């Protein structure tokens, strides 16, 4: 060990006569907590900031959202404006991602696709959150026969192949964003409901929820103020995984050709269009696929980071 770095504690010489006496009561501070006091959100932010990967992911997603809003407005090209003079061009300063077989600017189309993909993703996650949390929370908290019936309904929904009713919904409501969203949400809230139910079931036996009951808290209060708030970590994590899975599902629908109809574009339909010219212009498929991959990765990292930061026990 480096000897110079150690500075020995210098005791006053000679020691005062009372050095070994007990401290008077006023000077004793056994209740002292060295850690500074911070509010919940300061705490969450401080935790989150330390996770560089999650922070980068957040920046990426914010950037993606800003671009998705701004690019189609500011760009000289529109998502459906064709240009016969410039078909299937490679990336250049004029068209930074190149153009497709109708001469449409791919950059604008990808960003326009981001609008649809991201809004489907976030909207689906939001709907799942509300339905799943309330449904699962009630099933888990009430328990007994109510729980039995509610969960069997969930099992039934889960067992129907989703493609089947998505196609049916498309037939009835037409292929627009609403029906895509509806199709995705019908089955995916089930996962959230199951998660919340198990969380609530284990938390409801904890003493703090019994304490709330003894205090006279209503069941709604216990469920929403104690049980669901305490399962917020897993909920957030599963929520951030739900966004990419909805984006992926939408892209998949677009890719198999039953999603958003042309000339509108989502990342899935863009990839599908690029697939048709894959042999001659492979560069065209890179952009939508890259967007899907990066967004999914970023959302996953963000979910992990948030789940950790939201836990007040971690600093």
């Amino acid at each position: 060990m480096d000897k110079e770095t150690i500075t020995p504690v210098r005791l006053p010489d000679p020691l005062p006569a009372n050095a070994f006496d007990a401290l008077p009561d006023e000077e004793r501070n056994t209740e002292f907590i060295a850690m500074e006091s911070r509010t919940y959100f300061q705490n969450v932010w401080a935790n989150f900031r330390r996770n560089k990967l999650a922070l980068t992911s957040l920046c990426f997603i914010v950037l993606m959202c800003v671009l998705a809003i701004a690019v189609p407005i500011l760009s000289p090209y529109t998502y459906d404006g064709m240009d016969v003079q410039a078909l299937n061009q490679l990336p250049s300063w004029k068209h930074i991602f190149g153009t497709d077989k109708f001469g449409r600017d791919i950059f604008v189309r990808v960003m326009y696709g981001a609008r649809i993909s991201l809004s489907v993703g976030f909207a689906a996650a939001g709907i799942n959150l509300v339905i799943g949390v309330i449904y699962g929370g009630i099933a888990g908290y009430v328990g007994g026969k109510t729980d039995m019936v509610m969960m069997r309904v969930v099992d039934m929904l889960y067992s129907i192949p989703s493609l089947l009713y998505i196609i049916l919904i498309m037939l009835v409501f037409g292929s627009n964003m609403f029906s895509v969203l509806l199709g995705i949400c019908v089955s995916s809230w089930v996962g959230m409901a199951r998660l919340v139910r198990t969380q609530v079931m284990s938390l409801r036996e904890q003493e703090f929820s019994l304490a709330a009951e003894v205090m006279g808290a209503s069941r709604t209060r216990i469920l929403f103020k104690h049980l669901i708030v305490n399962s917020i970590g897993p909920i957030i994590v599963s929520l951030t995984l739900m966004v990419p899975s909805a984006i992926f599902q939408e892209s998949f629908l677009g890719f198999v050709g039953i999603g958003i109809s042309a000339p509108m574009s989502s990342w899935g339909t863009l990839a599908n269009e690029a697939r048709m010219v894959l042999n001659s212009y492979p560069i065209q498929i890179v952009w939508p696929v890259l967007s899907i991959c990066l967004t999914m990765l970023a959302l996953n990292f963000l979910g992990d980071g948030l789940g950790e930061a939201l836990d007040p026990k971690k600093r």
Partner: protein
Amino acid sequence: MTEPILQVDNCHVWFDIKGGLFTKKQTVKAVNGVSLQVRAGETFGLVGESGCGKSTLGRAIVKLYRPTSGTIRYKRQDITALKGEQAQEYRKHVQMIFQDPYASLDPRMTVSEIIREPMDIHDLYPRREREARVVELLQTVGLKPDHIRRYPHEFSGGQRQRIGIARTLALDPEFIVCDEPISALDVSIQAQVINLLEDIQKKLGISYLFIAHDLSMVKHISDHIGVMYLGHLVEIGPSRELYRHPLHPYTQGLLSAVPIPDPKRARERHRIVLDGEIPTPIDPKPCCPFATRCPKAMEKCFCAVPPSIQVDGRQVACFLYQEGGRAASEINIK
């Protein structure tokens, strides 16, 4: 003699275990015909092994469980049937301190939110005064007002238990069920919490039902003690009497297991070692619950449940003392 503030009469709390396809439906008789009285301002200690039903009884008193039969009367009013507003009113008077200070505080709430919650629920005090009241309560339990924005996990076990006590006091209760409030704490901290509970009792005149398995602590804090075994109260008496002359063979065995901090005296003492395990409370046989382990068991102990009788101003449920049998002192173990 003053009127009892809480009177439990022949209380049973049974739980059904659902039978599966091939198993019969079974009943756990956690509390099986318990009667006791707690007077205003006094502490009633409830002792017994783990699983003997003392916590279940405590929870029935704060209306977490509904008794299968029997009554629990608080100030002459049967509380088992209370609903809605009356139940809320009852909750203001009767509160509970929990065993595990790590589990009984919501980890996502700050200390201020935790202590304020009961006031928010019952809409006590004007909104603005609640914060001041929280600070006051914190000081009552010996914590600093600047701890108010912190989360429970930042505190030590003893501090958390005091936060729990502050939360309980927020409603100004008259009766508190203490469900093993010290068993999860270090010995040095136990004394702190016990002293705090005693101070509060002196200051506010609260009655306690003190549930514990630490016999010396119970002796210290209680005026009366009840000994529970397998859902039955086998003996009730004033705490000093009960410690000096335990009547029921189970109480005798229990007390002989209390460590004595003096090796000389400890060596001289005759220890009663109870053989066997505590029987299961699932569908118990209709006999004395202690008969299987009792060193003095007689034939009739296996045939009927002994009724509780008065002996020397105490209540004992044991056939040894039935019908003027032997005098209490003869059977005592010196």
